[in-house]
């Protein structure tokens, strides 16, 4: 299954209820496109690291999307976000490959340290000989 994370930053002048309806809109688009919403996080109002469009704060929303077929409505959602000037930023990231790689590396870790060499001792010794 492919998994994605979709995060977007909304203008803080938009009310919380409106953010919820906007989010619901996007969620409907995603589910209509044949994917599931596997999680949702609302970070609320947060200070931006730098002003965007002369705005210093933003409301962060994060959606986790899962898709069995690999076909999603995400491009369409991104398109909508691009046209919505109350969305300051958005970012879609495909996460399944990286998470899988991370999970694979975790159990292999136990055997790895055997190959690790302690080089600090080897370098110091030749200097001691007269």
């Amino acid at each position, binding site marked *: 299954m492919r998994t994605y994370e979709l*995060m977007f930053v909304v203008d803080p002048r938009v009310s919380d209820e409106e953010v919820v309806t906007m989010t619901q809109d996007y969620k409907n688009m995603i589910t209509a496109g044949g994917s599931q919403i596997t999680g949702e996080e609302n970070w609320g109002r947060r200070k931006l*690291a730098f002003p965007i469009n002369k705005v210093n704060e933003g409301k962060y929303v994060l959606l986790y999307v899962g898709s069995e077929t690999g076909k999603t409505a995400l491009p369409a959602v991104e398109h909508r976000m691009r046209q919505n000037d109350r969305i300051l930023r958005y970012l879609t990231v495909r996460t399944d490959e*990286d*998470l899988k790689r991370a999970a694979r590396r975790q159990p292999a870790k136990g055997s790895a340290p055997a190959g690790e060499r302690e080089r600090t001792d080897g370098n*110091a010794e030749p*200097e001691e000989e007269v």
Partner: protein
Amino acid sequence: MARARKVFFRRRKVCKFCADKIDYIDYKDVKLLQQFIPERSKILPRRISGTCANHQRPLQQAIKRARHLALIPFTTD
């Protein structure tokens, strides 16, 4: 006789991600990323942080993603 003895005890740098077994570097983990962006908000080079190449790459990607979302700054002035 004075023997030029150079005994350096340089602290061996270890990759933070290898040590802590962090395999997925999340762009949302601002606290973690902040350790790799010093004062000028540049990405800390490997030669200083000691991060291994295999972890520096996803770290760099995560920092850039976080920057795009204004979670961490591009520069400080």
